[in-house]
């Protein structure tokens, strides 16, 4: 049903319809509305699930790990500090091939303390063996959760649905929250294959010495690569069942004749699209390549889609301190060095700690790369806050 609803509530209602058996989460801004609404849904009997109020995120992740290992469809949500605190468990869950789904309400990382949006948190766990999907708006955020459970259970890989904290979680906008029947038709009951059960005794999470560990990582890496097909198929099936495009690997906007291509992910994509339309009216041709699946990384798609594009600019809400843009690095790697082309791939860091990103900021970025490539620039940096002795 289409309603004007806060992003968090749209996600909570949708997750509830996916019929998780066990939910365990620890409150942390800006995920709180999601977990509170789920507590209400369970409390009033609209969802038959065990809701475990734990004492920390580390325990929340541990509870869902145990639940999934025992055959339950399990769900949690966290962000920033919470995600980092549970990082050990995040790696465990992937290593154990448990099909758990998490919402990550993307938020900046301490120190200094920030409750506001950027994507440093999910970026910090990009190597852990989880599928990472990024939502453009609240409709996609809700839809991706339904797809996530299906993808996870088919690939035996855990999935993080990333949505920008506050910008999406706390925004009211129209969302078509699917009905229970539609979700049930799309998402069959969970049929776990790798569980602890006295009927079929097996060990999960054994100790692997150097003779065996390496192959587990190879298998996991290959599984991540293979999940590309599932991610695309589920998105396609979703479009057929629900009548709208959501998820998938990448999406493009006005790319055909674009002289400059912007690459980004998450809610910033919306602002970029508005700018592209504005620039089009002024006679400028700019296009967008939007990444939905960040892990596995759509390397081939990026190369195939952009191989004739010579001016690419990546704008991201994350940074690898001491190296530069993370998404930018991934994009630069998508184009083989052997290819002799004069392509510019510029890197901009924006919106860290919730810094507002305006169309003017993005316009400045486009105009700059039209003139020259940018190795690394922080968009909208306030020079007045930085003194010589800081550097």
């Amino acid at each position: 049903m289409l309603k004007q609803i806060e992003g968090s509530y749209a996600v909570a209602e949708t997750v509830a319809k996916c019929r998780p058996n066990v939910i365990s989460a620890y409150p942390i801004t800006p995920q709180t509305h999601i977990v509170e609404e789920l507590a209400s849904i369970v409390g009033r009997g609209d969802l038959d699930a065990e809701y475990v109020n734990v004492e920390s995120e580390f325990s929340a992740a541990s509870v869902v790990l145990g639940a999934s290992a025992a055959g339950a469809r399990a769900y949690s949500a966290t962000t920033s500090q919470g995600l980092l605190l549970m990082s050990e468990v995040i790696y465990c869950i992937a290593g154990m091939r448990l099909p758990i789904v998490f919402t990550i309400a993307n938020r900046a990382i301490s120190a200094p303390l920030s409750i506001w949006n950027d994507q440093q948190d999910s970026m910090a766990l990009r190597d852990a063996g989880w599928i990472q999907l990024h939502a453009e708006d609240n409709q996609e955020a809700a839809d991706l959760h339904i797809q996530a459970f299906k993808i996870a259970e088919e690939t035996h890989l855990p999935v993080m649905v990333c949505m920008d904290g506050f910008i999406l979680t706390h925004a009211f906008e129209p969302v078509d929250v699917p009905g229970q029947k539609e979700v049930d038709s799309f998402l069959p009951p969970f049929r776990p294959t790798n569980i602890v059960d006295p009927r079929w005794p097996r060990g999960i999470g054994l100790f692997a010495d150097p003779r065996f560990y390496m192959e587990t990582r190879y298998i996991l890496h290959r599984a991540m690569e293979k999940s590309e097909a599932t991610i695309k198929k589920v998105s396609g099936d979703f479009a057929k069942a629900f009548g709208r495009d959501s998820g998938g690997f990448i999406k493009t906007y006005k790319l055909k004749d674009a002289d400059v291509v912007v690459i980004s992910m998450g809610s910033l994509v919306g602002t970029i699209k508005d700018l592209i339309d504005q620039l089009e009216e002024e006679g400028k041709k700019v296009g967008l390549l939007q990444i939905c699946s960040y892990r596995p990384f759509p390397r081939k798609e990026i190369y195939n889609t952009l191989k004739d594009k010579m001016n690419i600019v990546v704008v991201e809400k994350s940074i690898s301190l001491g190296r530069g843009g993370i998404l930018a690095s991934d994009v630069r790697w998508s184009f083989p060095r052997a290819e002799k082309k004069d392509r510019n791939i510029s890197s901009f860091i924006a919106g860290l700690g919730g810094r507002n990103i305006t169309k003017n900021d993005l316009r400045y970025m486009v105009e700059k790369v039209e003139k020259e490539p940018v190795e690394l620039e922080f968009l909208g940096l306030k020079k007045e806050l930085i003194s010589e002795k800081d550097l």
Partner: protein
Amino acid sequence: MNQSAEELNKIEKKDLFSSGHRACGGCGQALAARLVQDASGENTIACVATGCLEVFSSPYPDPAWRIPFLHSLFENASAVASGVEAAYKALKKGPVNIIAQGGDGSTADIGFQSISGMFERGHNVLYVCYDNEAYMNTGVQRSSFTPFGARTTTTPMGNTTRKKNLPLIAADHGIPYVATATVDDFRDLQRKVKTALSIEGPKYIHILAPCPLGWGHHGELTVQICRLAKDTGLFPVYEIIDGKVTNARKIRVKVPVEEYLKLQGRFSHLFKKGGSPETIAEIQKIANHNIERFNL
């Protein structure tokens, strides 16, 4: 360090935790924090956990702290304070009052590992817990300090677990001083802080700090609610010195728990039509048990 009775009972006002912070009007914790810092004096280092206190008092560029302030994470204030103490020992600096401070989560839940370690290793640190009985900063979700029957955003039907007893857990670590206090009795609270700081080793003070927003009552009722918490027996006030409960505040006239519960929105569901007399009876049992156990 032996202080005279006069010094112990003097109410200190030094403004080391200054006004102009961003706490809600009527905040029990803000008041308690001010009393604690003033009782300790300028020679204090505050190691504060993430929570209401830290969020409303320490935003750049104008924090309320006029003493050194160190904030790391939600769960590690005790461990961080342990580190500060170790540095002072190693560098042969000091003496200095090191006060680790936090609310429900950083004391009893996510910070439980950290505080237990600090107690067990015997660091010369005072831990002050501001107990507002839920995770207020993130929006009133339940904690292990949430009392039985209380409504929070993650226990919308009423909390079904009993309040964890950190003072007794602290005492069972074998630490030399534990005390409970309420935010309405300035003299008693500050006396306990000064007493604690005069003792070597880990100390724990647990302060009941009502949250008008989260508990659902007007700010002017804070004092009354503290008194009722004590006089019903739901929040016993006492000291534990070297493992022995002493100075328990006796209840002159015992008050039935309803008098306390009915003033707060978080318990209003117990009194509504089709309410819950069984829950109220259960809460009364908890109060009775406290009265017996601490001989109130």
